[in-house]
């Protein structure tokens, strides 16, 4: 039996609630409802799940989904050994056994037929049939399934099936409001509020350009990076260019605009 302690979140992750999501999540957990977290990249989805696992004191098993993932990567498989075969639980099965929160990150990356295996776990049955093993696993009473995805993905192929979507309760995440984001930056990195506010301002500029050459605006995560660099003593102009502008675009016009925004903000 796997040790559930290793999946526990030991330290309190810093999370700044934007609305009522903490209470709502707690309520969903009390009823063991599956949860879906939507939002653009770097807005705090994973941090939120981690925080909730800590707050509820439950182990958290995270799976980063990808296109090559098969159902057995989630459920488990037989392995060959010298004198026979041995069953190895996949992360989903482990979580269901242990009573952990299973977090499937970026679920749309997995192929649609793969994600179907989660269906029996996400309705009233709360079971996971292990057909290869001939076992019908009844999920632990503490088990909960959480998925995240980024709806900004402009691809016809990458979307969730309706039958999958309709098994979840949902949270819509977005980048926090400027004042809140400022607090987050200051708190996360120890940067002065005033400086953090300027970073947030630059973030806003880039978010206004979304769809005009930028697929996504500057994420809170990148702002945190910039703040870390500034906190470390890097010149704010350099830090912003390095952490905020260079990663997100190669379009020279957008670069020039963002560079100007940086200059205008840090005068």
């Amino acid at each position: 039996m796997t040790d559930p302690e290793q999946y526990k979140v030991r330290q309190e992750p810093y999370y700044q609630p934007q609305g009522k999501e903490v209470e709502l999540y707690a309520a969903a957990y009390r009823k063991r409802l599956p949860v879906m977290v939507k939002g653009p990249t770097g807005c705090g989805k994973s941090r939120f799940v981690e925080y909730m696992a800590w707050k509820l004191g439950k182990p958290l098993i995270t799976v980063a989904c990808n296109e090559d993932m098969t159902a057995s990567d989630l459920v488990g498989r037989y392995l060959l050994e010298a004198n026979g075969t041995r069953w190895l639980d996949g992360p989903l099965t482990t979580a269901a056994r242990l009573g952990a929160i299973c977090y499937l990150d970026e679920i749309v990356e997995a192929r649609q037929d793969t994600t179907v295996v989660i269906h029996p776990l996400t309705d009233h049955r709360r079971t996971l049939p292990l057909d290869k093993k001939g076992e019908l696993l009844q999920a632990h009473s503490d088990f909960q399934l959480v998925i995240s995805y980024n709806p900004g993905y402009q691809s016809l192929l990458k979307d969730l099936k309706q039958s999958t979507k309709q098994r979840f309760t949902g949270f819509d995440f977005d980048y926090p409001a400027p004042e809140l984001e400022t607090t987050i930056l200051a708190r996360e990195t120890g940067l002065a509020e005033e400086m953090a506010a300027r970073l947030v301002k630059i973030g806003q500029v880039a978010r206004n350009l979304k769809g005009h050459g930028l697929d996504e605006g500057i994420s809170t995560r990148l702002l945190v990076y910039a703040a870390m660099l500034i906190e470390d003593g890097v010149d704010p102009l350099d830090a912003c260019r390095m952490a905020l502008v260079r990663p997100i675009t190669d379009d020279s016009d957008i670069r020039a605009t963002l560079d100007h925004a940086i200059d205008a903000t840090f005068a």
Partner: protein
Amino acid sequence: MPSTPPLPDSVRAGEYHPPLMQDYRARLDTRFKEVEAVFEEVMAEALAVLGREDICHYLDAARVIGKLGRGVEPMLTFLEEWPSVVRALGAEAVLAEVMGLVMKMHDSPNSRAITPFLQTLAAVARTLTTRAQMRHYLEIADDLMTRTTGSIHGHHTTFPSPGLPDLFAQAPFLLAQLSLAGLKNWVDYGIRNYSSHPQRQTDYFSLQSADSRAVLQRERHGTLFMDVERQLDLYLRGLWRETEHLLPYSTAFDGIRRPIPYHDKLGMRVPDVYDDFVSPFSPGAEGALKGIKAGAEGAAGLRVSGLDRYRATLAHMVGHRRWSQAQIADNWSPFQRMAVEFFEDCRVETLLIREYPGLRRIFLALHPKPVEGACDPETASCLRHRLAMLSRAFLDPGHGYRDPLLNEFVRRFQECMAAGASSTRDIAALALSYVTLSRRASDQFARIHFANTVIDYRDDNRQLWRFIEAGEEEEAFDEPRQLQSEPAEGLPPRHYPEWDYQSLTWRPDWVSVYETLHPKGNPAAIDQLLLKHAALAKRLKRLLDLLKPQDKVRIRYQEEGSELDLDVALRSLIDFRGGATPDPRINMSHKTSGRDIAVMLLLDLSESLNEKAAGSDQTILELSQEAVSLLAWAIERLGDPFAIAGFHSNTRHDVRYLHIKGYGEPWGDDAKARLAAMQAGWSTRMGAAMRHAAHYLKPRPADKRLMLILTDGQPSDVDVQDERLLIEDAHQAVKELDRDGLFTYCISLDPKADDYVSRIFGRHYTVIDNIARLPEKLPELFLALTK
């Protein structure tokens, strides 16, 4: 010049010595009455700037010009203009070079241009300011003269350069707009394109023709609006969340009254070009500007790039849009309105700076710094000057003005702004009280002190005012003018640029492509052709069946295969160990199935197609028709989406793109009818046609997109003398297509084509020597290409 006879020692510059005048007259040696009349005045001016030696050279040069036999005009002009030239360029001006050019014009048929040359010389010298630049200018003129003087259409007389007098006449204007390098490009362009067309050359050099102005616009110095338009859009959207349209207005042709930026219902109007701005004061002295990297600018003052000037202008307008409320203007005097405008401008700028502190640097660098006391209230109206000082002080904490009233108002302004955004009404009240308190009788004077009071990034504030009495009521009865739009015939032309290989630049919107449906003929004719080639079709059909599909598909559960399928292998082993019969199909392999190719077939329909093909009694056109029919039939059978179009051209203004079959259309009677009616005429402007065809091929969702071009000769057109030009342009088009992921392939029917075809298409071409076999070659070629 050592041969100059010495003048008496008593001659000194600026002194008037009647006996000496006789010497000068003798030296000039002229009997023109007009010269006699102004001689003494001219000499007085010349003596003021020229030394003894130079006076002699000056008079010698004038004498030579006077004896050229062009009448009094050139001599008189030279006498009057030269002192100004010397004043602009310094004492040892470029007399020798100028005289060299004059003599050269005299020796060629261009002596008519001497007068305009001398007339604008002083104005040119004033803009050029250095002798080296003056020499460049003379070289450019010399170049134009040499290259455009000559015989036309093989006549045995030489003609003067048609454009030269116009160039001289326009030179001061041109140099105000262009750098010398720009002028050189502009002149080069004119020579290259109009050297064999005297009337159009004249139009070009006198700035009458449209492309003359367009090229001028492109070569202007400074930051051109069209170059930074997208950046400015992004700037508005990103920093200010504005989506207003930006509309440029021209500053080139409005010398007397420069338009000011403004915004109205249609959008924000900004100048089409901004030069970099170097503020006249040094940044070190400015308290507010400390901490700005002054290194590179040094004592020359702050430099503001043209782009930043655009940004400042836009930010200011955004400020008004955000925070200004229109005020009723009827009860306020013009002075009061002016004061309100100044105060309101400062209010919005203060708010803008609050938003982005970095804007202060740009605003202050662009804002003039009026000198306290520069305006004398006894002789001139100083209100403007006072307001400009106040405006400076509002924005610049380190203004350093001592006037108590001014400082009092700066304090009140800041108090007003401290609470928040304030409002136009409050700030207007403050402005009115300033006008009242600072009023002087001299404010009414007609002489207004303007120096250092023009703040050129600010708009004209037309949105700030509302007039009640302008009588909107009467106008309300006027019907808004309805623009009669004529029903369009066919599609409007699309404009494409053309590549100029000599200057390595684009000629903007150079070619007009008109797209029309090809007229229809009898579709049965095509079916007849297909019947005629039934045997060939049968052979093609075998080829088609062999054609392999392209897309990769994985096949699992193979006993033999290219890769081990791990999952299946593991499962088999488990079964084996568990005592069950293992599945031996543990490999997987790949196969290809399905094609995803979109094809565009572009036919050259130029006049040469009407010729009989060598070794055949059919014309090339007929053979092409057969070949295309067969190819279309073959592609149809393969199921690839394809389109067919033809093109020919009659100068750049009329390139016809004839639609024969589109992607959405079936290969049915309509398409066949158009193909049957195929006719040839005119010339081959290939680049434009390819660009237009690409416009249809590019959006196709296929994996591979192929453009086949069937042509029988090299690109050419009646309005292009330079053979290489259209070849290079077509090559450029191929590169563009390649960049967009379109594959181009040329099938040339010109046996001598290798040379230019490889220049255009690289290695993607086939030359079909035996044109009679085209009908079988073309489909085979296509199949080979897409196998």
